[in-house]
């Protein structure tokens, strides 16, 4: 039996604040989370800025016994999962804990912990490597920690596919609920800023500034010159409609469909044409049984990357080609930076947009690279029936999730 899936809670640990209230105020109020990086010394890098999570007190959300075993990413994802569950008003007990799952996406996961572990290995001796670090080296640590903290034994898995990890995780989670394998799944993802990958991204010329420009993030703008890193965790509580109805929960929205696709690309590089990213969106539209013209709003993946923003804009132009029926488009990485596995934060933002009838601004966008219907400043009183969260990743992987207002 196929079941309907709704979003009944959101949890956020982001550069724009912890918790949906602060996040909503700041994101839709047009604030930016980007500041000079303080997590490590940026002296030797051209890039100095990042959207760090600040004012996060994990003790507020996680018991001391589990907290002390967690790396920073697991703290953020577990806190966000707890918030999403509480926001949903869902109580976990012995009767339902096997029907509640955790499905997360992460791009870099515990890479910084692996780097710490490896440092001893290579500068001293493998025999001195610290066993305490080992559990957090693996990419599935955040989902494992969250399950232990929440005491849930349902489906638990981790998608580790670059920037589309969280969108793909949400697609998997939604499918599990549709099929009746779980009633509730906390899903989304997260990543943290670490010196290790900051260094690598510098060598791949991913970060602004490039070509002597200013250091800034300008999604979809003709002047864009690279991205600025971000971090954080965003989790949505997905629940079967029948479970939500049975306990009288009022959902934010419904998951109407999703689509996944690939396109040929060089290692860690971008495809040359928009067929791949277009396919994920058209597959999601087909799964939701709607026409492109019915999408009112898109939360895009654009991050100020020269080629990736162009690719996404071309795909959006191709899929939403009917004049007069083109969706509004925001790229909230202008406020949040490139958080890598950021699909959970963007899905939570979409749920809040649908509920509060607000569109988020695209900070840093002044001269659009194409004539799409971009949202430059926050707009209120906008009814969104269908919203699409778009995911694009280097290496040619694409995922789109469609969320629908209920009623």
């Amino acid at each position, binding site marked *: 039996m196929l079941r309907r899936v709704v979003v009944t809670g959101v949890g956020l640990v982001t550069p724009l604040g912890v918790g949906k209230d602060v996040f909503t105020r700041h994101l839709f109020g047009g604030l930016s989370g980007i500041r000079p990086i303080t997590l490590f010394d940026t002296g030797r890098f051209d890039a100095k800025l990042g959207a760090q999570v600040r004012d996060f007190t994990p003790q507020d959300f996680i018991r001391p016994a589990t907290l002390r075993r967690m790396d920073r990413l697991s703290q953020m994802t577990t806190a966000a999962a707890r918030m999403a569950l509480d926001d949903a008003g869902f109580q976990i007990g012995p009767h339902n804990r096997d029907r509640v799952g955790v499905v997360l996406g992460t791009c870099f996961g515990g890479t910084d912990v692996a780097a710490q572990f490896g440092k001893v290995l290579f500068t001293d001796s493998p025999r001195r490597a610290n066993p305490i670090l080992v559990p957090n080296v693996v990419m599935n640590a955040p989902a*494992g920690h969250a399950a232990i903290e929440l005491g849930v034994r349902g489906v*638990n898995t981790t998608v580790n596919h670059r920037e589309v990890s969280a969108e793909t995780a949400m697609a998997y989670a939604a499918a599990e609920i549709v099929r009746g*394998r779980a009633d509730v799944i906390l899903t989304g993802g997260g990543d943290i800023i670490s010196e290790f990958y900051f260094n690598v991204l510098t060598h791949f010329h991913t970060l602004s500034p490039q070509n002597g420009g200013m250091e800034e993030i300008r999604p979809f703008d003709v002047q864009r010159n690279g991205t600025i890193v971000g971090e954080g965790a965003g989790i949505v509580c997905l629940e079967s409609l029948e479970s939500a109805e049975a306990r009288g929960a009022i959902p934010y929205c419904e998951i109407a469909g999703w689509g996944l696709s690939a*396109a040929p690309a060089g290692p860690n*590089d971008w495809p040359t044409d928009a067929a791949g990213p277009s396919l994920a969106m058209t597959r999601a539209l087909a799964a939701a049984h709607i026409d492109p013209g019915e999408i009112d709003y898109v939360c895009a993946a654009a991050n100020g990357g020269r080629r990736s923003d162009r690719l996404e804009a071309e795909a959006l132009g191709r899929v939403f080609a009917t004049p007069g029926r083109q969706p509004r488009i925001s790229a909230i990485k202008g406020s949040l930076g490139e958080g890598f596995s950021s699909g959970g934060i963007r899905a939570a933002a979409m749920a809040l947009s649908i509920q509060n009838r607000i569109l988020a601004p695209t900070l840093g966008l002044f001269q659009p690279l194409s004539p799409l219907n971009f949202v430059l400043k926050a707009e209120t009183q906008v009814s969104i029936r269908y919203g699409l969260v778009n995911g694009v990743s280097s290496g040619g992987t694409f995922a789109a999730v469609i969320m629908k207002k209920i009623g």
Partner: protein
Amino acid sequence: MEQNRVVVTGLGTVNAIARSVPEFSRALQAGRCGIRPVTVFDTAEFRTHNGGEVQQFAPREMIPRHFSLKRMSRADCMAMAATIEALNDAGLFAVPDKLRGEMGVVIGGGAGGMLECEAVYRDYLLGTGRGVAYSRFASFCCASSADQIASQLRIMGPKTTFMTACSSGATAIGYARDLIQTHMAPVVICGGTEPLCRITYAAFNALQAVDPEYCKPFDKNRQGLSLGEGSGIMILEALSHARQRGAHIYGEILGYGVSCDAHHMTAPDPEGAGAALAMRRALEDAGVSTEAVDYINAHGTATPANDLMETKGIKTVFGRRAYQIPVSSTKSMIGHTLGAAGAIEGVVAVLAIHHHFIPPTIHHQTPDPQCDLDFVTEGARASDINIVLSNSFAFGGNNTAVVFGKFTDSGVSHA
């Protein structure tokens, strides 16, 4: 829309005892051991020195010339070699043009490009003066194996990578089956890949989970696992699609189940409750009764904790019948290939069904009174097998079990 039945039409593998599927089948039946001194990196400084290394791996001989190996890690190359073998086996290489748009790829990852990046990282830390080859990081993420497969085959269906440590490969097979069952793709390349590397080797040594000799699953004197490497790939296909093109069918994916221990990050639930939950879910998803299972390919890492809890979990699920079902750990031959384990063991399950044999648990000398199931310790056993349950349990409490079945035209009820 009616759900598709999902069948296996191609197999590929490289591992410590074989560089092709026919060789693997013979080695499994002969009970060969592939655990010997590791050579891909220098183990002098480590506590242990053995592993299940792929011998004389020569990707250029296994992967056609028109495929680039540029920027590909050992893990990527193993996955690509196994993919080419599996596609050839399925009669889908080169991939037909009309399939490219929809064919998907789902890989279970592990350390990805870690082996190569470790060397770069060491240069960075120690400052060798040679400069640091950052370009190697293009294949650092374990997603790069699926990226390479999809890009070089030019396929555009669903693509993703799971990373749940030791259950990644099993989950990848399960999800690929879901994608086909629900009409998201007609054919999916799925499996897992894992390289031996220093970080992983040091990590398991730091946890004192490695047997310095070779692993002895379910033996009273077991001391831990042997790390291994390799790749296992399957071509999964909608039955209607396979029939239409007259493909040879190895077997059927009947179902899978996923659960979480929610107990401890590295130690399994000692009662095997999470493991039992995954097995039950897999059987339920497959519509298979406990009576119908003919063989269990165990997770069987040979750590004291895993083998005991897995034995308990099997007893919880199967009751008295647990004693009548042959259970073996093929990790005794190839080591624990982590992210690839569930996928390579999936290949084992399909071969067992197809060639009518049960692979042995080798190195088992001393029975453990607490691990008292039929562990097939005397050598491979000839046997007609209809249903195999394959277990994979991981750090983080991530458990996955997959049910494989003999293919029958009628889609017999296995209940």
